[in-house]
């Protein structure tokens, strides 16, 4: 007989906990400095940025098989900006990709900003002073369906599942913050660094693309506990977010969940890329704060204070619920967010996604309510089996009363910049010329 507990425990969060405690123990035992310990801990997308551990010298390599900014940990600040692209042919698109690559190479590595004759406008906005430091900056480029659809020479190369983001039943999409030809995800330790990067990119590419919308967000910075473990950051509903994310430091797991491989029926140029979903999801926080505590937990399916599963309240967020022993949903309701999102059975393994969200806080609505929510970003190798399937399962969930998706888009994250002579999107351009 199969032991259901074993099946359920072979989950990703379980791996992640092992890793975290493992590293934590080494760090403590070896009496390493706090900074080193924090760096060791802070390695997976799900992990919150660790308090007092960020340094302007932190850098993420911008070269590699895959683009940066997907499987590495979230720094405290994130932004998605979406653009309309002007390029009419492969040459113009290549020129845009090369411009962006040059900016990525400078901004993520850093260096002195060029000084021009003071009678001219400055080359750099100066937000970061005379020397740009990397500050954990990543810049991730992804393409929307419209870029392909509007260009007959590019259309045959569109990734198999890439479509314009469809409307889901609870959506109230605002056309001003939806879709786009090209999305740029910018993440860094500080907001100044993300904004500096965005302004630099806009200045360098003004003849090639036009800004359509942007949304900024952040991840709360967490102080690790006495055991050196950092818990997941909380979202604006007050729950820990990221607990059950797959372990993004596990390369094999990321190859399965996130990266598009050569044998998935995708165009060859797309190998090494990923599907990016961006959803700007407003949270009705006043209403949420007027909802009974117990109901909040039943809606989410986790204990609010600790993040523990509801059938294991004494545990931690890294414990996993045992749905097989709770077939009627007495502990974790059948329609709880986490239960619908991941039934944790064999079939749902195909629907695992890597979530990389940021909280956003924009201002006040006309009705005098806070305009806050989640800049939900997720990556997956298969858009249909990933986000779309999970969202379909979530359609009609009780959480919908408290959230409203208002914007975002579906994009395809380009494969990585292989080396200093390569540029982002080179495989697509080569394919477009060959076609």
């Amino acid at each position, binding site marked *: 007989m199969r032991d259901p507990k074993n099946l359920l425990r072979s989950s990703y969060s379980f791996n992640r906990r092992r890793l975290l405690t493992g590293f934590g123990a080494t760090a403590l035992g070896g009496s390493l400095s706090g900074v080193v310990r924090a760096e060791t801990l802070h390695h997976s997308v799900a992990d919150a940025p660790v308090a007092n551990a960020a340094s302007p010298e932190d850098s993420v390599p911008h070269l590699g098989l895959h683009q940066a900014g997907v499987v590495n940990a979230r720094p405290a600040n994130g932004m998605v900006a979406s653009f309309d692209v002007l390029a009419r042919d492969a040459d113009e698109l290549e020129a845009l990709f090369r411009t962006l690559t040059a900016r990525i190479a*400078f901004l993520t590595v850093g260096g002195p900003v*060029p000084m021009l004759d003071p009678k001219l406008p400055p080359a750099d906005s100066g937000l970061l002073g005379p020397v740009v430091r990397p500050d954990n900056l990543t810049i991730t480029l992804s393409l929307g369906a419209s870029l392909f659809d509007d260009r007959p020479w590019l259309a045959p190369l569109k990734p198999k599942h890439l479509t314009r983001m469809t409307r889901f039943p609870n959506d109230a999409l605002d056309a001003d913050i939806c879709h786009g030809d090209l999305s740029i995800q910018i993440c860094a330790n500080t907001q100044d660094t993300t904004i500096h990067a965005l302004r630099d990119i806009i200045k360098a590419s003004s003849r090639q693309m036009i800004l359509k919308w942007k949304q900024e967000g952040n991840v709360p910075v967490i102080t690790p506990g006495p055991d050196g473990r950092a818990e997941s950051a909380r979202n604006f509903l007050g729950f820990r977010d990221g607990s059950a994310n797959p372990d993004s430091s596990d390369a094999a797991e990321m190859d399965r969940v996130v990266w598009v491989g050569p044998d998935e029926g995708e165009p060859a140029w797309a190998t090494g890329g990923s599907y990016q979903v961006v959803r700007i999801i407003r949270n009705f926080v006043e209403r949420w704060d007027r909802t009974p505590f117990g109901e909040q937990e039943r809606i989410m399916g986790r204990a609010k204070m600790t993040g523990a599963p509801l059938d294991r309240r004494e545990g931690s967020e890294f414990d996993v619920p045992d749905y097989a022993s709770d077939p009627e949903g007495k502990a974790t309701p059948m329609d709880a967010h986490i239960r619908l999102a991941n039934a944790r059975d064999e079939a749902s393994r195909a629907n695992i996604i890597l979530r990389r969200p940021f909280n956003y806080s924009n201002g006040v609505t006309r009705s005098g309510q806070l305009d806050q929510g989640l800049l939900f970003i997720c990556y997956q190798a298969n858009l249909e089996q990933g986000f779309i399937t999970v969202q379909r399962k979530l359609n009609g969930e009780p959480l919908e009363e408290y959230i409203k998706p208002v914007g975002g888009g579906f994009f395809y994250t380009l494969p990585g910049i292989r080396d200093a002579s390569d540029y982002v999107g080179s495989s697509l351009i080569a394919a477009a010329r060959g076609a």
Partner: protein
Amino acid sequence: MRISGLVGASALALVLSSGAFAQEASLDLVEPIAEYKIYVSEKVAKLVEDTTAFTAAVKAGEVDKAKALFAPTRLSYEAIEPIAELFSDLDVSIDSRADDYEKAEADPEFPGFHRIEYGLWEKNSAEGLAPVADKLLADVKELEGRIASLTFPPEKVVGGAAVLMEEVAATKISGEEDRYSHTDLWDFRGNFDGARKIVDLVRPLIAEKEADFLKTVDANFATVDTTLAKYKDGEGYVTYDKLTEDDRKVLAAAVNTLAEDLSTLRGKLGLD
């Protein structure tokens, strides 16, 4: 990491190398500026003439005639906006928009062209507009007088080319300028003509040294021309809502690029 840092920095240097060093201010500007003053004087004289006819129609309650005169009258104003804006009190009373006032359209202080535009198009009436029309005409005449006695500051004249493009980029490409009449393409025409006039006047001074720069600028002006030409209707243009999304993007990119490029024009001429 270090190595790619150098690559990054040199790539940046390449991107920015052209035109990185400005020249010393030149006496050669005297003539272009004198010519520009003539251009502006002619435009403002035309503005007074047209505004006289426009406000007369408003005061006579001839709504259709006033509507027909609205966009062509503004054309001269839009072309010389960088100079008109030197007199900020007049610019506010001639050309401010409803959003500049706390109560928007309902605000009794909302004046000028756009207050009249609101009445003509939204209310289809000239009722109550007579005092606004009188004030507009008086302001335009006052503008003409002040311009006549103005010494044109060279950096404002040369910088005006970029200012015109910044105006379009920041608040016009969205179609919010002439939001009741949707005659925005006329205003664009005026702004582009005004910017190009300035480039043409200083062109001989930089033709040799900045040939590539001028080529790019001319190409973007040409893009604007071909795009606007598609929307020509008689002497003027169709309404802004007829502009396709694709053409709006083309115009937006051309405007952003012109703003970016023309922002270096002052420095290229050695003006501080």
